[in-house]
C-alpha cells in the first residue's frame, strides 16, 4: 500500500447518501460539482478541503476500504460492521441517520406459529450470512443461510425458503410481499468509522474530523 497524502472519506451509494450529505456539509465538507452529476464517471471527488477527497462506493465496500486503510474515514451502517467484524475499525460517532432494523420475517400465514426460542435450526435467505449465523448461534440455533444480494422478499413466495433476514425501515415492502416481521436481530444506524492505524499515525487530523462530525449530529 502506498502512503497517500490526502485523507479519503468513503461514503455509501444510494438511499443513505441523501441522509448523510447534510451531515457531511455541516462538518464543513463540500464535494465538487461532479459528485452530484449522475453522468459523471468519476469515482474520486475533490472537496473544498484541499487535503480531503471523497469516494462513493457500495455500503459493504465502505467498511472494506476503511479496514484496509485505503480510505481513512467512512460512513456505514452497523449492519455492515457487524457482518464483517473487522478489528481495525473504530466507530466513534453514531450519526443517527439511516435508521432501520435487521429483522427476521416470515409469510404472514405462518407468523402466528413462530416461536423462535424453541428452534434448533433455521433456514433463512439473507444478505448478512455471518451476522445471521452468529446471532442464532449465540441463541443455540444453527442457521442454514442462503446468501442473496437483493430482493430477499421474493424468496418465501417463490419457495426458495420460508424465512428471510433483511433490513426493515417502515415494513411496507414486507407487507406488500405478504411477509411479517417476527424478530428483531439488531437496530441499525449509520456510523462514522475510522481506520485504526490512521487514527494512531495522524491523531490530530483524524480527531479533528471526528469532532466535526460529532458536532454535526443534532443532539437528542
Amino acid at each position, binding site marked *: *500500500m*502506498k*502512503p*497517500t497524502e490526502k485523507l479519503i472519506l468513503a461514503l455509501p451509494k444510494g438511499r443513505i447518501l441523501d441522509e448523510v450529505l447534510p451531515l457531511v456539509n455541516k462538518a464543513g465538507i463540500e464535494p465538487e460539482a461532479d459528485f452530484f452529476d449522475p453522468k459523471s464517471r468519476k469515482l474520486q471527488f475533490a472537496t473544498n478541503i484541499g487535503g480531503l477527497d471523497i469516494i462513493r462506493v457500495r455500503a459493504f465496500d465502505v467498511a472494506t476500504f476503511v*479496514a*484496509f*486503510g485505503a480510505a481513512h474515514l467512512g460512513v456505514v451502517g452497523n449492519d455492515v460492521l457487524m457482518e*464483517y467484524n*473487522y*478489528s*481495525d475499525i*473504530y*466507530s*466513534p*460517532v*453514531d450519526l443517527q441517520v439511516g435508521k432501520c432494523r435487521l429483522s427476521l420475517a416470515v409469510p404472514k400465514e405462518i407468523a402466528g406459529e413462530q416461536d423462535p426460542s424453541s428452534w434448533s435450526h433455521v433456514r433463512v435467505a439473507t444478505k448478512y450470512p455471518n451476522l445471521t449465523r452468529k446471532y442464532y448461534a449465540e441463541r443455540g440455533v444453527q442457521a442454514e443461510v442462503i446468501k442473496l444480494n437483493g430482493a430477499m422478499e421474493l424468496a418465501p413466495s417463490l419457495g426458495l425458503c420460508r424465512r428471510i433476514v433483511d433490513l426493515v425501515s417502515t415494513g411496507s415492502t414486507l407487507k406488500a410481499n405478504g411477509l411479517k416481521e417476527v424478530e428483531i436481530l439488531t437496530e441499525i444506524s449509520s*456510523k462514522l468509522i*475510522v481506520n485504526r*492505524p490512521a*487514527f*494512531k*499515525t*495522524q*491523531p*490530530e487530523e483524524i*480527531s479533528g474530523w*471526528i469532532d466535526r462530525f*460529532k458536532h454535526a449530529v443534532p443532539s437528542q
Partner: protein
Amino acid sequence: MTTGMDKQSGAPPGDKALLPSGLRDQLAPFAEFEAETVSKLMAAFARFGYDRVTPPLMEFEETLLSGTGKQNSPKMFRVMDPDTQRVLGLRSDMTVQIARMAATRMQDIARPLRLSYAGNVVRVRGSQVRPTRQFIQAGVEIIGCDSLAAELEVICLAVEALVDAGVVDLTLDLTVAPLAGMVADSLGLDAAQREIAKKALDAKDVGALDVFGGTAKEILTAILLATGIAGAAMEKLEMLSLSGAAGQLVARLGMMVDALSTCLPKVKVTIDPGESHGFEYKSGIGFAVFAPGVRGELGRGGRYMARGNDGGEEPAAGFSIYLDSIIRALPIPSMPMKIFLPFDVSHQMSEKLRKKGYRTVQALTEVVDCRHEAQRLHCSHWFNSDKVEPV
C-alpha cells in the same frame, strides 16, 4: 534437455505452482532483503545485551497453550506425534516458547534475563486484513524485572531496531489494557455493563456510554477521550485523579511519557488508555508501533506476567515484530549488483573481485556476445578485458 533459453517462453506453470492461501514463495531480491532485515533487528537486540535463543518449530500442544498461549488455540496447526501419540502444535507465536524456556531450562540463570528470538510462525488462518499464514516473528523478552526501566528499555530497543532496519516516521502508541477493568472494579460494574463499556472503548464510541449514569459515564468517557498526542491526552487522564490500582497505572504511564520525551524526543508518542483489544494479556503498559501508509501495526509489546514452572508468575516485558509488516514499511529493495565473468576469466581474478565485495556470475560456456549474455542473466555489470563495465 531444456536449455535456459527455452524456459523464457515456457508454458504457464499451472496448478503445480498453486500454494495454499496465505502461503507464498519469496523470490529475489525479497528473500535476501527479509533475511538482511532480520539480521539488522537481531544485531540491534544483541547490542542491548539480549542473547538469542531458538526454540523448536513444534512442541506439545498443551505447552504452547499454557499461560498467555491460551488465546492461540484457534490459530494453531496441530499434528499427531507418531512416536508419543500426543498432539503437537506448530508454533503460532514464539513468545510462549520463550516464556517456557525462561521458566524451565533457564530458571536458575540470574534475573533479569534478556532473550531475543527470530523464526517462522504459522497460523491456521490469517485475519481479513492480513491473510498471511506464515511469517517471521522477531522480538525480545526481559524476564524477572517489574520496574518501569524494563519497559522503557524494550521500547527504546524496539525503536532503535526499527530505525536501524530503515523504518522512518515511527509513531508509538501506548496503552494500559488493565485500566478499564480496574476502573470497572472501582465503579462496581456487573458483567453485562463491563461488556458494554469494553465494546464502547474498543470502538471509541462515546455515544454507547450514554447507558451509564453519573460517575461511571463521566470517568469512562474521559478515558475514551484521553487519546492522541501524549502530552495533551495525559493531562486529560491525570485530571480524573483516579485512585488505587488505576491511579498507580496512570501515574506509571505518565512517568513513561516523560521518560520517552527525554529518551526518544524525535518519535511521535500517542496514548490510548481505553484500548484493550489485542492487549488482553498485557498486565501494564503496552505499546504498538505504527508507520504512515502501512496497514496495521509494525510490532507490539509491553508488560505481562510470564508463567513460571511451578505455576507461579514472573514479571516480564517484551516486544515482537512481524517481518512482512516491516517489509511493507521499507522501500522496495533493488536487485544487487552482479558482474558477469566471461568463460576465460581466471579463478584468481574472480576471487579477487569477490574479495573486493563484488558478486560474480561465471560463464560456464564460451559465448560470443558477453554483454548480451550478462543482460540475459540479469547482471548489472560485466567484466570486459580487465575492467568492470555496466551492461
